[in-house]
């Protein structure tokens, strides 16, 4: 029983991380139709810069972690904004070129990060509480899982509130439905594009710093590995559906943990099979709009 609780709890924590990356991917695809393969780079950059900023205050302190989270989110937002303005905007409505540019950027940035910070993972120093566990019905649940769930839920609530209660949120929701008609109402939808990229980048940067606390290291490759599962989550949840991404993040991560434990480390395989099943049975994803 305690093993099952542990697997579910760690799965929920991992799901929180997946959601932080997938939320941006889903919003960006939903509004702009852009598959952003560079999204993992926002995460990695946010992690490195956020940790560096946190270390200035004190490695392994709550103050340092808090500053790291803020700086990581801001770094991710800034990187995403620059990417959108410099690379995506000149290629509007040229989706193949946009994909190629983001793939190229993801490869180039990993090489750049390796050049700056070295190719090997670096250990991070965590606040004492995050390095320990909490007993839940006999299961020793890593405290990072609670933090990740909290962060994922906070970002979900924040984005939902933004979409529901702000004018830009209204523009984004309308743009996901019919971008041309939003323009025909006299709205410069490009600003919404940039904003969505920035929000997605901020969530990814936040996720990057949080991922270092769970993994206990930071690496130039961490964004790429998380991005693969975030893409799977985005497709299973339904491209463009934020709620779908949240649900799929939890389903995928918990399933992955359970399969890794009970089915001889086959978590990744099971997730890919789930992706195939969803694509066959419900190609628009769990909560996506039918094509």
């Amino acid at each position: 029983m305690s093993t099952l609780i542990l697997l579910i709890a760690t799965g929920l924590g991992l799901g929180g991380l997946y959601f932080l990356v997938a939320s941006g991917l889903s919003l960006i695809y939903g509004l702009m139709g852009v598959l952003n393969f560079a999204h993992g780079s926002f995460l990695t950059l946010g992690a490195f810069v956020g940790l560096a900023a946190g270390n200035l205050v004190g490695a392994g302190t709550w103050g340092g972690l808090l500053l790291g989270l803020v700086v990581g989110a801001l770094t991710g937002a800034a990187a995403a904004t620059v990417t959108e303005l410099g690379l995506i905007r000149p290629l509007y409505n040229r989706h193949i070129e946009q994909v190629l540019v983001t793939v190229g950027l993801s490869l180039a940035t990993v090489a750049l990060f390796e050049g700056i910070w070295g190719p090997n993972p670096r250990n991070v120093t965590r606040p004492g509480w995050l390095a320990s566990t909490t007993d839940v019905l006999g299961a020793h649940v890593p405290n990072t899982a609670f933090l990740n769930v909290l962060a994922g839920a906070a970002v979900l609530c924040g984005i939902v509130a933004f979409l529901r209660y702000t004018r830009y949120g209204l523009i984004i929701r309308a743009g996901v439905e019919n971008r041309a008609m939003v323009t025909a109402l006299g709205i410069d939808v490009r600003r919404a594009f940039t904003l969505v990229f920035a929000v997605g980048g901020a969530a990814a940067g936040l996720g990057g710093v949080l991922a270092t606390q769970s993994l206990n290291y930071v690496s130039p490759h961490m964004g790429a590995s998380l991005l693969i599962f975030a893409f799977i989550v985005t497709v299973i949840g339904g491209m463009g559906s934020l709620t779908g991404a949240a649900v799929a993040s939890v389903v995928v991560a918990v399933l992955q943990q359970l399969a890794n434990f009970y089915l001889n480390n086959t978590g990744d395989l099971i997730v890919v099979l789930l992706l195939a099943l969803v694509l066959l049975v419900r190609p628009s994803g769990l909560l996506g709009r039918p094509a």
Partner: protein
Amino acid sequence: MSGSNVLEVRGLSARIAGQEVVHDVSFEVPASGVTAVLGRNGVGKTSTLRAILGLVERSGEVLLDGVRVDGERTDRIVRRGVSYVPEDREVFAGLTVAENLRLAERGTTAHGTTPERRGLVDALFPDLVKRAGQRAGTLSGGQQQMVSLARALLNDNRILLVDEPTKGLAPRIVTEVAETLATAALTVPVLLVEQNLQVVERLAERVVVIDAGRVVHTGPARELLDDPELVQRLLGVSAGGAGDEVSTSSTSEEVEAGR
């Protein structure tokens, strides 16, 4: 010339998926009343409207109040006071009626939303006030058309571009839409694409007839509608068929729909 015209279109061509569907179209829209764009199905009427707004690839000149706007983005042209009621309404189905309208509000800038316009919309569409919290996707076709018209009328525009507002609607709703447009036309000039000749007869003072992507006739509406032979030749309906819808031919709209 531009002093009495709100909109001038000169040598406008439009391309969809690389195929030219509107060829060298020129006409003017006076600063008051309704100008109807007529023609068989698929001759390029919708594409002409969309080309004016820059929603499709285009060349040629579009002048609003004598100022060229053809080099501008769609949203800038619209903010100059051009509102668009698209074919098939294109309301945002997932948003409520109130949200659809709020999205269309342009604030208090030039050609923006004024208390007078808001009052006009509330007076013209009392049903929408009652349905403010209802998702637009759950409305009937006629109600969705009202949302689409209300969006366009909220702002202090220089001109309305209205594309087949009565398409697919029940006769009673067609009458309501025509009445609404007649009231709207008292406050703003309208360029109206319409298939229903009864509606054209009711509303339009001038007509522009398009065939195979080219303008083949312009002039007073009465002059065309009173000439059965001309109506038959240009629109493919009989003279007594003022209530008929004009007939079908080949299709720039179909090209567009198939994009």
